[in-house]
């Protein structure tokens, strides 16, 4: 009973907020247009702030003043579909632990940053998509054939990032005989893997593929290709956003016109990684 009343309350609050923010949004756009009158393909005015990772090669990566990666390219495509040209996008760094805050405080308009759709997150933010389905997998040395899945990790050393779902899953389900090294970033994990200190690195397969495709690591490591979870990467939106439908439409078009596959190949293809074909390309969920 109480749960239902809460849901009703939340829905009412959301509606109220949506009404407020559409008013506020208009003001913002006016201010933005006054400062910077850019001529783009008959698109929206002002700028759009998109949260991405800056340190994840192949997905979201800051390369000098340039941003590269699959997440970034998908974000560009979606922004374009919404009417924002490249020069209207403001890239914002969105580290994992700050994504909800950035959305709640209105510091970003949307987030494309290997952001898995989960029920707990849905309580505070909204999602469009998914635009990709990743799965937890293992990265091993290129010449290592002894590890083909998490069951083979018994007694071996494994590296993951502190606080990540991957580290926690290994701890809960497999770590009985696995030694877990937790590092601040995946770059450190790959360093430990190449030096032989650990036997495998674990996180979502596409992130591993991005790491394997970095020129410095190419040929030294490989993705095992036996995913053991399902991570639906969604577009993070503020709870009151009304852009979900438009984004989902853009994602569907992107998949249908072949751009999705092109972007994937261009960004992580060099690692030889193939995404789980049963789940990809995904169909966006209905907007709530």
């Amino acid at each position, binding site marked *: 009973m109480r749960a239902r009343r809460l849901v009703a309350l939340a829905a009412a609050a959301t509606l109220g907020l949506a009404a407020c923010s559409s008013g506020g949004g208009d003001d913002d756009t006016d201010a933005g247009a006054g400062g910077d009158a850019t001529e783009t393909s008959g698109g929206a005015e002002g700028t759009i702030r998109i949260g991405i990772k800056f340190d994840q090669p192949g997905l979201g990566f800051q390369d000098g003043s340039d941003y590269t990666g699959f997440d970034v390219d998908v974000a560009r495509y979606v922004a374009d579909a919404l009417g924002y040209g490249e020069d209207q996008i403001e890239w914002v760094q969105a580290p994992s632990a700050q*994504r*909800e805050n950035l959305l709640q405080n209105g510091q970003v308009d949307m987030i494309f940053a290997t952001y898995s759709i989960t029920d707990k997150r849905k309580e*505070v933010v909204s999602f469009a998509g998914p635009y990709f389905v990743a799965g937890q997998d293992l990265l091993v040395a290129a010449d290592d054939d002894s590890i083909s899945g998490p069951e083979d990790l018994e007694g071996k050393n494994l590296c993951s990032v*502190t606080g990540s*779902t991957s580290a926690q899953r290994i701890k809960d389900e497999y770590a009985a005989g696995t030694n*877990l090294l*937790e*590092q601040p970033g995946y770059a450190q994990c790959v360093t430990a893997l190449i030096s032989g200190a650990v036997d495998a690195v674990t996180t979502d397969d596409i992130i591993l593929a991005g790491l394997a495709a970095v020129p410095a690591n190419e040929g030294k490591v490989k993705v095992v290709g036996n995913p053991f979870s399902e991570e639906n990467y969604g577009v993070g939106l503020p709870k009151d956003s009304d852009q979900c439908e438009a984004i989902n439409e853009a994602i569907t078009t992107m998949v249908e016109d072949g751009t999705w596959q092109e972007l994937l190949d261009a960004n992580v293809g060099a690692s030889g990684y193939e995404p789980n074909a049963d789940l990809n390309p995904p169909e966006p969920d209905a907007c709530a």
Partner: protein
Amino acid sequence: MDDGYLEQFLSLFDQFDVLGAFWVNIQLTFWAALLSLVLGTVLAVMRISPVPSLRWAGSTYVTLLRNTPLTIIIVFCVLGLWGQLGVQLSPDFQTNFFRLAVVGLSVYHAAFVCEALRSGVNTVPVGQAEAARALGLGFWPAARLVILPQAFRGAIAPLGNVLIALTKNSTVAAAGSVAEASGLMLTMIEFRPDVILLIFFTFASGFVLIVVPLGLATTALSRRLAVAR
């Protein structure tokens, strides 16, 4: 804030071992404080010694370690000492990282302990050292019997600052695969983004609870033990 929200928040403490994580920080702090006090005292003696090469070695150590970010030192302990050189401080996988982190924290804070002690030495009047020499004491007996005991009592406040910094810096051990509070905070934020601010508040107040008594204690001690001159 209705009951449901509060209950959910309290359920966090069942789901995650918050107190256990803080206990790890306290243990890290304790061992690193002990080791860095010993190493820092040795360094301080080197820096005030009459032997030029010892003075040079002491000041080089301080300059190098004090100016290197702690995260780099901790990551080096894991990826360099353990990963490349195969240094094992314990046969147990996780205990090894705990001890490596203690080493990293100690070598870093020893530089600060050394400088705090040197500031304490400066509070000892020159006449004391001259009197010690006049009594026929060599450098080491003079340092041990006359100068250091007074220097310590004059350096309690700056040493307390180093201890407080060390307590908070023990969170950097997360970079060395030690399961302590800041690492747990990241895990909790990852899994419970619905109560993100309360999680943050929990850990912030946890450190306040540990650090405030430390500050009060060192202030009180520095008053009580100061050498009256």
